[in-house]
Structure formats: structure tokens, C-alpha cells
């Protein structure tokens, strides 16, 4: 019994458990976070909304989806359909994550119905309840990587590496996301969901899940009618073969960094990426910048990065460098879950709260 208690994880990631209570008691929940100082006029300019970039990108996105789907259908039954499905899968299951994200914030387009329309479509592609995830993401921004408060911590401590690896296959989406939608469609919300979705919004979560299930039921019916997997390869199953890019880029947002700190410079990572990944990811590689200033649209994040980089840790030069840096941290966390990657702030950075920085960094920042 005592041994079992010794190996038990100290972190309780449930949103209604001990860590949650502790975060509230200690003021970590809904805390005030560090922000780099940016003059109001500059920030106002960065926050400005525009339909142009998102309309351009959405036209390219939809054209690429339809084009790859057409190729996959045309060559269905031959090996030539494989490359088309590989492209289609990434567009369906990975790029929809960033569209869901940006349109959920309401910053991608200036015109709100466009944000709402793309948000609903992308949520479906992501197999996510659009209501539940809107609220879970609000919580993620309130309490980023605060244990017991943040509903979107991708890799918990100690890390479950098998689970992280399986995430690349999309299997976990079927294992978790689909049953959640089914449960929601039957009118049931978990205690965690009830914790972050206001009561007035909960019926909307049930209604959204029912719409999603209706589309899946229609797709299955069509597949049975055609006696072909093709409809399922176009709707639903791309979550299995196209999720890898979303996981590849998304895991890097916070993995291996500090938890329970109220400074995004310490728990969030900016990574330089190639232009194709940045298109798929809609510039969310500038993730410290996004968390610090969620009002800034994706197309203005590179400019924001240039303005505030003097106050941020050096960005990872590439995804390869970032994973290379993270791997030994994860290995150590298997034995010692409190271990994490300390971010070095540049000498020009302003230190925030001393307890988050060791003396050397604080001295360097002075």
C-alpha cells in the first residue's frame, strides 16, 4: 500500500481533483500572467482584423482538399490513390486543427460568420464537439499548463510515451474523441466537461454532438449502400492517416516545459518551421506570442514575434532541434516527474516573478 502511494503520480490532471483545488487555493487558477510591454498603438495595429489573408488561405485550403479528394476518388482501387489520400488526410485531419483554433478565437477573419462557418467545419473534421472545445480552449488560455485546471495538456507527467506515439496515428481520436461525441449525443457530459462548460451552454454541446453523429451515420449508410470504404476514407477515417502533422507540430507547443507557472515564456515554445508546415499550422509555431497576445491574428504573428523576441527565450530553430531538446527531458521525467526544461530568458528580457527563475537568469536579466 505504502509502495503504491510512493509511485503514484503527484499530479492530478482531473479538473475536479486535488491539483485543481490546490491551484485555486494558491492563486494559480485565473491568475494574472506576464505580458511583454508593447505600446498600445503598435498592439492596436497588430490586432486589426482582415478578411483578405484568411480568405486567400481558405480558398487554397478548400481547393487542395477538393483536388486531393478528386484524385483519390479517381484512382480509387489502384495504388495511385495513396499519395492523394496522404495529402487529403493531412489537409482534413491536421490543417483543420489550426483552422478550428484560429476561427475559435475569432481572429482569422474579420467577418464573424466566416469564422463561425470554418470553425464548425473544422470542428467536425477534428472530431471535436465545437461547444465543448470552445470552452476547453478558453480554459487552456486562462490556465495554460496549470495542472488540474487546463483541459488541453497533451503530455502529462510522468509522460506516457506510448500514448504520445499513438497520437501520431490518430488512433487515440477514435479511442477517445468518437466515444465522447457519442456520449455527448446521448446527453451525457463528464464532470470535467461540466466544470468548464457553463450550464447555459451545455445543451448546445449535446445538440452539436448529435449533428456530428448524424453526418457519420449518413456516411456509414452511404458506404453500406455503395458497399465501399470510399465514403469513410473521405469522412472520418482521415483522422487515422492524416493526424500526424497536427501532432508533430502541436506537441511542441508545451511539451517538456514548466507547469504551474504564470509566464508563457516558461511553459510555451516558439519553433521556426518550414513554409508548408506553417501554412498547415497557420503560424501557430509562434506559440509564445499567440498565448501572450491571443488577440493578434495568425497572419500578424511573425511581425509580433519580431517586436517582442528580445523579451522571449530563443525560439527553437526547427522541429528537429525542438524534439532533440525535448527527448532527454521526457526520459528524465519517466523517473523524476518534476524535471522540466528551464527556458533561458535573454539578457534583454524582463524577469517576472523571481520564483520562476533561478538566480543566474534573474541576475543576467538585470
Amino acid at each position, binding site marked *: 500500500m505504502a509502495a503504491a502511494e510512493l509511485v503514484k503520480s503527484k499530479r492530478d490532471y482531473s479538473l475536479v481533483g486535488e491539483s485543481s483545488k490546490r491551484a485555486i487555493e494558491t492563486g494559480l487558477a*485565473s491568475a494574472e500572467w506576464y505580458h511583454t510591454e508593447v505600446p498600445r498603438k503598435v*498592439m*492596436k495595429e497588430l*490586432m*486589426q*482584423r482582415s478578411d483578405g489573408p484568411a480568405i486567400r488561405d481558405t480558398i487554397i485550403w478548400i481547393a487542395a482538399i477538393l483536388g486531393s479528394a478528386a484524385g483519390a476518388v479517381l484512382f480509387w482501387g489502384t495504388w495511385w490513390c495513396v499519395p492523394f489520400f496522404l495529402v487529403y488526410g493531412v489537409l482534413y485531419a491536421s490543417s483543420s486543427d489550426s483552422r478550428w483554433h484560429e476561427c475559435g*478565437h*475569432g*481572429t482569422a477573419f474579420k467577418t*464573424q460568420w466566416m469564422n463561425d462557418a470554418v470553425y464548425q467545419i473544422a470542428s467536425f473534421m477534428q472530431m471535436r464537439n465545437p461547444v465543448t472545445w*470552445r*470552452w476547453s480552449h*478558453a480554459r487552456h*488560455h*486562462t490556465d495554460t499548463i496549470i495542472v488540474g485546471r487546463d483541459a488541453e495538456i497533451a503530455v502529462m507527467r510522468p509522460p506516457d510515451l506510448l500514448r504520445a506515439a499513438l497520437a501520431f496515428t490518430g488512433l487515440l481520436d477514435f479511442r477517445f474523441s468518437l466515444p465522447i461525441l457519442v456520449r455527448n449525443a446521448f446527453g451525457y457530459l463528464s464532470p470535467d466537461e461540466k466544470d468548464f462548460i*457553463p450550464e*447555459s*451552454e451545455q445543451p448546445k454541446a449535446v445538440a452539436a454532438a448529435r449533428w456530428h453523429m448524424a453526418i457519420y451515420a449518413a456516411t456509414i449508410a452511404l458506404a453500406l449502400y455503395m458497399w465501399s470504404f470510399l465514403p469513410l476514407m473521405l469522412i472520418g477515417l482521415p483522422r487515422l492517416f492524416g493526424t500526424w502533422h497536427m501532432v508533430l507540430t502541436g506537441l511542441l507547443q508545451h511539451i517538456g516545459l514548466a507547469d504551474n507557472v504564470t509566464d508563457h515564456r516558461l511553459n510555451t515554445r516558439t519553433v521556426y518551421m518550414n513554409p508548408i508546415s506553417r501554412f498547415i499550422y497557420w503560424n501557430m509555431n509562434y506559440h509564445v506570442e499567440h498565448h501572450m*497576445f*491571443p*488577440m493578434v491574428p495568425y497572419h500578424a504573428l511573425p511581425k509580433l514575434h519580431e517586436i517582442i523576441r528580445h523579451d522571449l527565450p530563443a525560439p527553437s530553430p526547427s522541429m528537429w532541434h525542438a524534439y532533440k531538446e525535448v527527448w532527454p527531458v521526457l526520459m528524465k521525467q519517466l523517473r523524476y516527474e518534476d524535471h522540466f526544461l528551464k527556458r533561458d530568458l535573454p539578457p534583454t528580457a524582463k524577469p517576472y516573478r523571481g520564483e520562476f527563475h533561478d538566480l543566474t537568469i534573474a541576475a543576467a536579466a538585470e
Partner: protein
Amino acid sequence: MAEWIEACAADDIDEEDVIRFDHGGRTFAIYRSPDDEYFATDGLCTHEKVHLADGLVMDDIIECPKHNGRFNYKTGEAKRPPVCVDLRTYPVRVEAGKVLIQVG
């Protein structure tokens, strides 16, 4: 008894913008609309108590800087999740280049 308080000079606020005004232990947001009218609301978002003065004014909308919730700052109406609770508004008048708000 509600009293009129001088909040700022009219030209302290840019057109289509907002500033923060603290008074008596409370915080307010003072807006200047694109039509050059002035409005006032409670200064903190009803969702997570974030200062709205750091947000973005677009026409008659104020967007919260933390979660992108939206209010109509003229009426206080909550317009976009995650805000669900309306914002309290206050009467405003401009006299001799000063913005006054009636707090009660």
C-alpha cells in the same frame, strides 16, 4: 445617489479605442466610437475579470484581450462566447472637452 465623475480628457482616447479609468476602488472602460461618441462600461470582462481596456474596439464591439469574448459596449450585451453575462454600462457626457461618467 449617482455622481458624475470626470474620467479623462476627450482627446485622451483615440477614435475607435478604449482606455482604463480607475475610481473608488473600481475599474471602468471608457470608449470612443468611430462616430466620435463616448461610452463607459465596467472595466473587467464578465468572464475572467480581464481588463477590457487592453482589448480591441471594432465598431460598437469590444473584444476581450484574453479569450476574445465580445460585448456591445454601447448596450453591454454579451455578443460572443466565452462571455455569457452582459457588461454593466454607465451614462457618459462630454463637457468642455472632459469625459464624465455617472457611477452609482
